């Protein structure tokens, strides 16, 4: 029975995959363009030629260091982090059959930041050790796990959002408290880093720190995508088609925690990419949760890279944090979604 359900799901998948080729290709091209743009833009003006030379290992040493050691890791991180956030959003929305689900609304990045900050302020780790992403992953896992436990099986919208708000506020307060209590005279600055998120001046050490976890998390989430489609038919139907819903839930939580935790450990909390990306993609690829995954990841990667380019172009005395920009775009979007959902649910709109 189980095997039968899987085969059936796979057949569905093969048929559905045909429809998403166009948008996926176009999105890949957009992400590539943004990636190259991210290499070309920065406080030091470099001509496109100089950037190309530097990438190939030619040109002046200064340009090589700037492009290869400062801009390249930043571009890789923005694509990877944006991608895994978009994917996490699509996966959570698929799991809960609820378009308002996303890591940020569940407090996952905030909890991951709390985990990381706690590990640092207890003096357990420094910011370039592997223990940091692990602490962040534990924080993210805990928050999503608790949220799903609180919200229960047939997650009601209001319940999810309220529980998520409570969790993220708690985690944010915990982060501030842990930094304040740590013997760090720069606590206020550091808190802003953890709560606002930034990709400024990262290095390949940061990439090495985050990427393994992000890749494993993303792989885990991608592997579940056929099950989301079956799940869309309802939990009982999915169960009868051989989907172990409890196991699926756990795998998704682990996948999201790995991706978000790895991301937060090097970039701080970056919100709303996971919410916005799947929504942008739905009109393009339809409502099939399995088809939504890859485009959502690409949209997330594109959004975060674009935002990270934008913070470098905004003329400001000190750097604008990329997390600020994603929130400024994301929160109004979220409000609009709430209004729309209210209508869809017939929740008392006259």
């Amino acid at each position, binding site marked *: 029975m189980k095997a039968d359900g899987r085969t059936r799901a796979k057949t569905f998948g093969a048929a559905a995959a045909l429809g998403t080729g166009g948008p996926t290709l176009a999105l890949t091209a957009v992400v590539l363009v943004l990636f190259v743009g991210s290499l070309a833009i*920065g*406080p*030091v003006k470099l001509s496109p030629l100089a950037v190309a030379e530097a990438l190939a290992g030619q040109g002046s040493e*200064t340009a090589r*260091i*700037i492009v290869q*050691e*400062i*801009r390249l890791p930043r571009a890789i991180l923005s694509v990877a982090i944006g991608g895994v956030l978009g994917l996490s959003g699509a996966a959570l929305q698929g799991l809960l059959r609820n378009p308002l689900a996303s890591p940020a609304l569940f407090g996952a990045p905030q909890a991951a930041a709390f985990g990381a900050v706690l590990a*640092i302020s207890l003096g357990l780790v*420094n*910011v*370039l050790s592997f223990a940091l992403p692990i602490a962040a992953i534990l924080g993210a896992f805990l928050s999503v796990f608790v949220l799903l436990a609180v919200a229960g099986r047939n997650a009601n919208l209001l319940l999810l959002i309220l529980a998520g708000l409570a969790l993220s506020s708690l985690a944010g307060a915990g982060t501030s408290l842990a930094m304040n209590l740590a013997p*760090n*005279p*720069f606590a206020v*600055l*550091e808190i802003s*880093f953890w709560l606002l998120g930034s990709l*400024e*001046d990262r*290095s*390949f*050490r940061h990439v090495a720190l985050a990427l393994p976890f992000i890749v494993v998390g993303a792989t885990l989430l991608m592997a579940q995508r056929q099950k989301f489609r079956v799940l869309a038919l309802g939990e009982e139907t999915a169960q009868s088609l051989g989907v172990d819903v409890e196991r699926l839930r756990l795998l998704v939580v682990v996948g999201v925690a790995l991706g978000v935790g790895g991301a937060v450990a090097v970039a*701080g909390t970056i919100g709303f990419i996971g919410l916005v990306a799947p929504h942008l993609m739905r009109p393009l690829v339809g409502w099939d949760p399995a088809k939504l995954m890859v485009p959502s990841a690409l949209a997330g990667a594109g959004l975060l890279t674009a935002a990270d380019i934008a913070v470098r172009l905004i003329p400001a*005395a*000190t*750097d604008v944090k990329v997390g600020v920009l994603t929130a400024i775009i994301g929160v109004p979007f979220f409000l609009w979604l709430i209004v729309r959902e209210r209508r869809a649910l017939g929740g008392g709109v006259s």
Partner: protein
Amino acid sequence: MVRHLVAVLLTLLIVAPAHAAGPKRIASLNLCTDQLLMALADPEQIVGLSPYARDADRSFMAEEAKKFRLLSGTAEDVLMLEPDLVVAGRFARRATRMLLKGSGLPVAEFDIARSIAEAKADISRMGELVGHPERAAAANGRIDAALARARAAATGHARTVLAVSRRGWVPGGQTLTNDLLNAAGLVNIAPKLGFRTGGFASLETIVAARPDDILVAGGGDTPEDQGQAFLLHPALTRLYPPARRIVMPERLTVCGGPMLADALDRLAAAAGRLPP
């Protein structure tokens, strides 16, 4: 010229204490006034220091400070102490200073020293306030001697330097650090990069400007937070291995005081190396 005027004005502003002994009980609210007080006053005169006085990274006389009581830095415990004089910085804790003044306590405020001359003026002023101008003159004499040594050591070919703190903070042209670097015959490139009082320089800017050396506060290699991780970015560590980093602990440059003599000697040693 302006600096001299400032120094003269500051000295004139001091109401010369009638009695040579000075006030009996003095409390300090600021890390920098802590340093001046410990260096110039008699231990019996000091009734309390600021919360950071024992911070070994920032307080030059951290060891000495263990002998004294630490204050919370707020008005309450200062009021309870009823000191004869409160010394404080001009910029922080404005509300606290207002409250203390309002309750009739004499509060002497010190500006942040932006040059060696201003620091020397502060030393003289504190010397007068505590009733030991001879100690202030001796401390200033040591700074002058260190200045002379630094000038003598400076080679013809000046090394370019950028002082870089956590997260890429760079002190600009109108700072004590800048004055110290110049006095030691080093060229601070921060003014050329457009930093007047200070600001954050991106990693790219530093790499592109490529000073001969960078001046850092510590030689540590474990980043406790993201701000410190900046100084350990591979781009910086490769261009600036330990041999190209002038290590200047914060406790030597964060305040203007007698410790500037040590700071100058350190810089003079670094400036004596020939540029590659």
